């Protein structure tokens, strides 16, 4: 027969409460709902990129070729570059899209978001400059330095191209930050819980 010690039971219940005092209540569902809201921001960035690509591919080549501002080679290169960027966006977003937020365990969600953030940043720091610098140089050359009408200053013609590039960069960077911040927020919330 077991010799029961009530003091021991008291100690055990105190032990249990001490253990529980260090725990946080996890509202898994709430966390998933918050994550889903942040995922909306990430998806919206993707859709905006696709909309821009679609508009560019329809309007840009026809307008540019019609107006004859840029050479055919440059217009084709631009379209290929835009398509490549669209594929890059699709590729980086693919694991996020495939993930079922309501059924996937939160550790996997955090892992996928961390990978997404890393790839998004790599795109910004490595791919963007390596595409943008040659493209911009070529655009400046085509617009301001090649076949410049007499009396026009090439440096002055360079300014609108550069202003446009800076505006484009700022918009792109803003979208980038929004997506990365949303991913950060998801990771932080999961880690905190």
């Amino acid at each position, binding site marked *: 027969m077991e010799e*029961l010690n*009530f003091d021991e039971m008291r100690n055990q219940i105190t032990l*249990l409460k001490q*253990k529980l005092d260090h725990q*946080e*209540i*996890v509202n898994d*569902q709430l966390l998933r709902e918050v994550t889903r809201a942040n995922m909306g921001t990430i998806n919206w960035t993707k859709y905006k990129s696709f909309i821009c690509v679609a508009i560019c591919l329809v309007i840009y080549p026809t307008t540019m070729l019609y107006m004859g501002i840029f050479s055919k080679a440059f217009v084709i290169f631009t379209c290929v570059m835009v398509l490549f960027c669209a594929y890059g966006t699709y590729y980086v977003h693919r694991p996020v899209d495939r993930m079922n937020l309501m059924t996937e365990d939160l550790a996997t969600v955090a892992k996928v978001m961390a990978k997404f953030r890393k790839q998004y940043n790599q795109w910004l720091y490595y791919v963007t400059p390596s595409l943008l610098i040659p493209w911009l140089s070529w655009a400046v050359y085509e617009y301001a330095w090649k076949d410049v009408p007499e009396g026009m200053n090439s440096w002055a013609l360079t300014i609108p191209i550069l202003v446009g590039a800076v505006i484009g960069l700022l918009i792109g960077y803003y979208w980038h930050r929004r997506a990365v911040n949303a991913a950060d927020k998801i990771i932080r919330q999961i880690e905190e819980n």
Partner: protein
Amino acid sequence: MDIKEQEFSRMVRENKSTIYTVCYMFSNDADEVSDLFQETLINLWKGFESFRHESKLSTWIYRVAMNTCISADRKKRKLSSKVPLSMKINLYDDEDHETKQVRQLHERIQRLDLIDRALVMMWLEGMSYEEIAEVVGISVKNVGVKLVRIKEKLKQK
């Protein structure tokens, strides 16, 4: 979050160990303890608005938790709400020394019937006979008698 929700959230945070302990002692596995914990919080929220502070908050929380666990036990897993609300702790599978101690207590208390479980838990937590009587709804004298019987039962097993 409005003031009421903030107040409720604070109350839950401050008393989560008590609530979870009650749920744990009335459960047989980790899923059940989560279900009971969640159901108790729902019932606490439902009653929070009408709680008039006529009794101590801790007594009221105990009463709601006990009633939830005792009645939920009868209709076993009929709860349909599936909002996972729990704590990241597994008192059924963890193998550290402290958890083993806690499990030993769980096994001892599980041998008792539901009302006796409630009584002995409150007694172990150091609640007065008056408070226990208020939670369970029996006389103070009856609490004393029942506790003597429970202690005997525990010793026998």
